[in-house]
Each structure stands twice: as C-alpha cells, then as structure tokens.
C-alpha cells in the first residue's frame, strides 16, 4: 500500500470509530444510565459553533492567512448574501443556488471592472 492509501484507510477507520462511538453507546445505554442535563445543553451548541468556526475564516480570509475585507472579496460578498437568503427563506437549496450564483457572478464582474 502506498503512503497515501495507508493515510486514507487510517483516516476513514478513525472517523468511523469516533462517529459510531458517539451514536451507538448512547443509543444502547441511555435508559440504563442517565447523562446529566448540562451535557445535553452544551451539545446543542456544537453544530452551530463548529460550522461557524469553519465558515467565517473562509469568508474573511480567502487566502487562509490575511483578513481581506473588500467589495472585491467575492467570498465575503456572496457569503453575506447567503446569510440573508438563508435567514429569510430557511431553504438550504435556495441558499446554495443563490449563494453560488452571486459568488460566480461577482467574481466575474470584479475581474471585469476592478
């Protein structure tokens, strides 16, 4: 096996174990043992906090290093539009379609004008 293949196999096995390790034991054990309510309170903030921590740098730091706040930053402009669309419509599909259209259109326009 090549190094890359080994790396991918280990990654998938590891991800499988931790994912199953969260889902299955709780399903099998709760009712037999109780988890404190505080744990569940904290868990509710996991999805929005994690996803935000991934998304915000992608919008404000498209090169991965420097904060770039400008109308020529298509990631930021389309990201703001997507936030508004999602907030108003709650539709994932509309958010993706309009966000992508604005991103590609804005990048094309900024290439032409600025």
């Amino acid at each position, binding site marked *: 096996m090549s190094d*890359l*293949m080994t790396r*991918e196999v*280990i*990654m*998938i*096995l*590891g*991800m*499988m174990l*931790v*994912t*199953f*390790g*969260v*889902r*299955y034991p*709780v*399903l*099998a054990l*709760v*009712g*037999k043992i109780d*988890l404190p309510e505080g*744990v*569940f*309170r*904290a*868990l*509710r*903030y*996991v*999805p*929005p*906090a*994690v*996803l*935000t*921590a*991934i*998304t*915000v*740098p*992608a*919008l404000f*730091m498209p090169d991965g290093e420097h904060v770039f706040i400008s109308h020529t930053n*298509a*990631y930021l402009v*389309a*990201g703001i539009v997507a936030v508004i669309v*999602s907030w108003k419509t*709650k*539709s*994932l599909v509309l*958010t*993706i379609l309009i*966000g*992508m259209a604005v*991103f590609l259109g804005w*990048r094309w326009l900024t290439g032409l004008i600025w």
Partner: protein
Amino acid sequence: MPPSISTRRSEFFAGARATLPLILGAIPFGIIYGAVAVANGLSPAAAQGMSLFVFAGSAQFIAASLVGDGLSVGLIILTTFVVNLRHALYAASLAPFMKHLPQRWLIPLGFWLTDESYAATIARFNAPDDSPYKHWFYFGSAAAMYTNWQICTLIGILVGQQIPDPQGWGLDFAMVVTFIGIIMPLIRNRPALVSVIVAGVVSVLANGLPNKLGLMVAALLGIAAGVLAEIAWPVTDPLVAVEENA
C-alpha cells in the same frame, strides 16, 4: 403518518416515504461533498469509502476540507468526533424507544443515525399507537438515506473528476455556502446567536494557531458562550430539536 395496519413492510416503506423531503435536501449536499472531496486530493475510493463507512454528512465535508488544508489524520479524526457529538443528543432521545431491541438492531440503527432519519422518525416513535414494528419505520428511513447518500457521493466524484480546475468553478465556495444554509436556521434564540458570534470572531483571531487548532478553540469557546448566555436568556425549547440538514 403511521400506516393504518402496521406491518414490518408497511412501516419500512412509510419510513422511507416520510424521509423523502429530507432526502431532497441531502442530494446537493452529497453531490457537492463528492466533488469537493476529490478536488481536495482524496482518492475516489476514499471519498466513497467515507460515505460507506463513516456516513456523516457534515463531518465528511469538514474532513474533505481539512484534507485540502493538509491537516494531520489525528486532528481530522478529533474534529470528526467534535462535529458528531450532536448525535449523542439524537441517540439519547431515541434510546427509550429502543430498550427492547437486540444488538443486531441496535448496531445498524446506531450506525445509520443521521439528522434526517432522526427528524423523520422521532414523530413515529412518539405516535400514540403501540405498533411493535416502529423500528422498521426507522430502518426504512435510514436505508433510504444511506442509499441516496451513496449514489449522490458517486455522482459528485464523477462530476468532480471532470472538472480540471475546481476553484475556477467555485466548488470551494459551495461548501461554505452549504454551511451557511445549515447554520442560519439553528440561530433561533439569543444564546445561539451569542455562540455563533463568539465562535466566528475567535475563529478569525485564532486562525494563526498551528494545526488548525484555532478551529477547535473557536468551537469550544462558542459552545461555552452559548451555555453561559442561557443564564441571561433562558432557553425553553425542548432539549432535543432537529432543525438542520446535515
């Protein structure tokens, strides 16, 4: 929509049908995942293998982007763990209905637990009738989700391989915009807003930390901020509520 006469078969298909609207939402997500994964350097086999063996949309997406960033395998696995912690909520909510089931049911149902199947199934479990086959409803829902996810991943991989320059097509932004569409509906009260703002600000400030640790720091501080904000603005929602698409 419980079937009028409950049999294993009727519950199975009712579960699959009840999950259909959620499956429609997962289709673009699965296709984009497959395309992003190969664009970021995962082999097609690994991209499909992740869907087959891990089966966790958001976590797969994030792992694919972290592979693109060149992050170590250990940190990718750790991030997967944190992202999937929310499944403990769903599992705890379903567990009381599964007490009587043997391991040969608990293991696959545990593996197949997703946001979508939880959302589609919990109402069936809570329905007043005492059908002994409600777990077949879950089985139908999960089987439909799983099958769809594999097909969408494959389509995404094939599409991704045809695109020589994924950045040029904005595929890297496709993931970002998908996440925005998942996050926004989750912000339903002030503590959630506080959590998201803190996570967002810290993620930029802590971006320079090595090994993408800024991501973990920002997420943990965001979670802590949300919990603390509940002191000022108590949250009355039920503890387990599904409102996302991943």
